């Protein structure tokens, strides 16, 4: 063993121990919650998603941060005095929602990258999780439509894409998508 390696290792250990990482506080999470609430309705300015629940974030030490919200893929504008759609109207509504699913997933990936860049307090090896509940009425034809989409990836991987260290296909492999 070379004689200079040990002192160098000790010095690195001391340096690492002395580095202070900002804490994941409630204020940090709330800031990103508001950011999500403002961003989600504007993901498609021509046909915006309908935000039905404000974003909620929670930090799980050692695991990462989890944000949840609820939207409707189609601006429904229901009223108790309007008859619900039936027959072809229901099928048209389902087709429209199905058509918007890929766009929503792309937007969720972008939001994950945005969260990784914004939440510096989250350790790079921990997860950034985004769960969106999709609002559907009981009379709708929900065949093929998920009621919840959950995406998660290590913060470091998301940062690597942000810094263009990896390409999108590699990110696709790193992101875990669950549809419930």
């Amino acid at each position: 063993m070379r004689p200079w390696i040990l002192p160098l290792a000790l010095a690195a250990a001391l340096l690492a121990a002395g580095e202070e990482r900002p804490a994941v506080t409630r204020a940090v999470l709330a800031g990103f919650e508001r950011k999500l609430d403002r961003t989600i309705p504007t993901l498609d300015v021509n046909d915006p998603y309908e935000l039905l629940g404000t974003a909620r974030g929670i930090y799980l030490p050692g695991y990462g941060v989890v944000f949840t919200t609820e939207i409707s893929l189609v601006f429904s504008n229901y009223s108790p005095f309007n008859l619900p759609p039936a027959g072809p109207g229901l099928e048209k509504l389902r087709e429209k929602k199905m058509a918007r699913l890929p766009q929503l997933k792309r937007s969720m990936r972008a939001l994950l990258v945005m969260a990784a860049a914004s939440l510096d307090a989250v350790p790079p090896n921990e997860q950034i999780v985004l769960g969106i509940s999709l609002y559907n009425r009981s009379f709708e034809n929900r065949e093929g439509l998920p009621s919840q989409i959950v995406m998660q990836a290590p913060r470091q991987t998301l940062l690597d894409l942000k810094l263009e260290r990896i390409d999108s296909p590699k990110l696709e492999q790193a992101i875990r998508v669950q549809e419930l």
Partner: protein
Amino acid sequence: MSCSPYDLKDFFFGELEAGQGRQVEEHLEGCPECREEFERLRLTRVALDSLREEEPPRRIAFVSDTVFEPRWWRALWQSGPRLGFASAAMLAAAILVHAWVRPAPNVALAPDTAAIEARVGAEVARRIAPAVQAAVAESEARQANNTKELVSAAQRRFELQRDADRVAFAETLTYFQKKLNVLQLASADLGARP
């Protein structure tokens, strides 16, 4: 025995002289027995006058005359072969007659249609009335059962629709609650900005 001075038969046939006849008439007026006999004579004459006069036979008949020959049927009856031949001939004739003259068709008597119709009508009415009553009762029972089922089905549909409306209303309320929450938080966010 007549007590008339003259024979009453002579007086009856007018064979007495006028004086004698007057004596007999006077006697008849006074003698009921002679008058009765005279009446019998007169009745006998009336009876004889009523008979048809027949002329006596003018010649003498002999046994050998054809008048006394037996009739043909008597000769036939007395001869066995002739009787047999005659019987066979009659039988053949009867067969021929029967063959030629067919018996009249057994035409059924024209039925009394009015009486039959009346009887059939009465019988039909007697049988149909209870059957109609039973059928009507059964139909009414079936109708009542159908009505009951329809009402029950309508109630079930109404209940289902009511439940669906209740669920839809609850969902709409939830939807508006969520929208309201978003708006309230957005409003609070705007109010918190400097």
